[in-house]
């Protein structure tokens, strides 16, 4: 190993690759693939020797580089119309450099709560105010996270069955309700389409049965031969008409 072991930590294969290119002061458009590949692999060895978990991403890049190196060693056999095999790593490197630079620009901006500070809501003002806000200050991630918390807390005696199937009755229930809301009433067959699998058929059907059962949907049929019609049994706000 002829290079100094000054271990920096790299975020990923592109980060390491960029470091090697800069350290060797080589042209990104003319990467000496053999040298860089060797150094890259040595680096992975060092990481492994130090018991650093080498992520799969690093290994994928190693494989790519070895492949490119081997391709470069076969000068005349390669298809002449093919581009320089090294561009396979040059291109992502270019993209990576671009966003690395932007990330640098980002961190140089006047960051809130690092460089600049704003007024805080003064408690004395809040006190004068009853909770009657109309807008909500909440985002989807908070909702998801709340659900994850609930599911993870494992209350005694509660068993949450996580549905593994692709379509849940719940989703199909919503689908049917949304459909009925939009169209007023629909024919039975409109709930199904030809590209559905049997299991999806069944789930949709179960959802429909459930809806009819709880009284949110009415199924109507004029004669035994005519198509079954489905009608909503709730008003615009989703309230059940039956009360």
């Amino acid at each position, binding site marked *: 190993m002829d290079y*100094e*072991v*000054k*271990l*920096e*930590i790299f*975020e990923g294969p592109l980060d390491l690759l960029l470091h090697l290119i800069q350290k060797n002061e080589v042209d990104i458009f003319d990467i000496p693939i053999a040298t860089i590949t060797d150094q890259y692999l040595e680096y992975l060895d060092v990481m492994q020797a*130090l*018991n*650093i*978990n080498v992520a799969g991403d690093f290994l994928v890049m190693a494989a790519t580089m070895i492949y490119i190196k081997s391709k470069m060693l076969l000068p005349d056999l390669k298809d002449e119309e093919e581009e320089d095999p090294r561009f396979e790593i040059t291109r992502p490197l270019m993209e990576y450099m671009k966003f690395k630079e932007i990330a640098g620009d980002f961190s140089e901006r006047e960051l809130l709560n690092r460089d600049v500070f*704003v*007024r*805080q*809501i*003064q*408690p004395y*003002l*809040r006190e*004068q*105010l009853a*909770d*009657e*806000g*109309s*807008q*909500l*200050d*909440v*985002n*989807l991630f*908070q*909702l*998801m*996270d*709340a*659900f*994850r918390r*609930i*599911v993870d807390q494992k*209350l005694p005696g*509660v068993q*949450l069955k*996580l549905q593994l199937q692709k379509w849940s009755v*719940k*989703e199909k*229930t*919503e*689908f049917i*309700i*949304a459909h009925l809301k939009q169209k007023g009433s629909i024919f039975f067959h409109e709930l199904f389409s030809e590209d559905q699998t049997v299991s999806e058929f069944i789930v949709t059907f179960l959802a429909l049965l459930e809806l009819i059962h*709880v*009284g949110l949907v009415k199924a109507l049929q004029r004669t035994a031969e005519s198509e079954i019609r489905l009608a909503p049994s*709730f008003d615009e*706000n*989703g*309230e*059940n008409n*039956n*009360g």
Partner: protein
Amino acid sequence: MDKPLKLIIEAFLFASDRPITLREIQSWLLGETPSSIALALKELQAEYDSLQRSFVLKEVAGGYQLRTQSVYAPYILRMLKTSPTRLSRAALETLAIIAYRQPALRHEIERLRGVDIGGILKTLLEKDLIRIMGRKSLPGRPLIYGTTRKFLEVFDLKDLDSLPKLREIRELGVEQEQLAQARDERQKIETSGKENAASDENEASGETST
């Protein structure tokens, strides 16, 4: 100190959400005497008064605070009334259960949250985030809850199908980011020699496994 004391104190007052005392100000600065700080506070007070701003420097609860003048209170209250409010953790959790499990029955939600949720359901209904979808034909004909169109709007969702699945929530693990943080920390602390670097390396990898 390369900035005028007066303006540094103004910055303190500006960024604080509560009254700050002379003693505190002194503790955040180096080598300033209470009297020089008191003088600067007096100067600020006089300045705001003479400039006839909408805010004044007030002595409250043993400290100093920038407050808007009371004549502006009606305007500010109008503003605060339309400001977004937060949902309590309990409300958010209840909403999450309804969103993911709908059509949901009250006792099912209570079973998951482990507490009575009558008040929360009322709040969520008032905020138009949930609705009563109907009644289940079970003893007692319990109400069935689901989310509303407003719910989709608030969470910027196209439809209920766009709600992330539990699996997707879990997939956003934490290990990777912790690793990155550890890396950055290390890069801040420039290692002097290679032995150091190597030993730090082990520590970093140790951290990630915990």
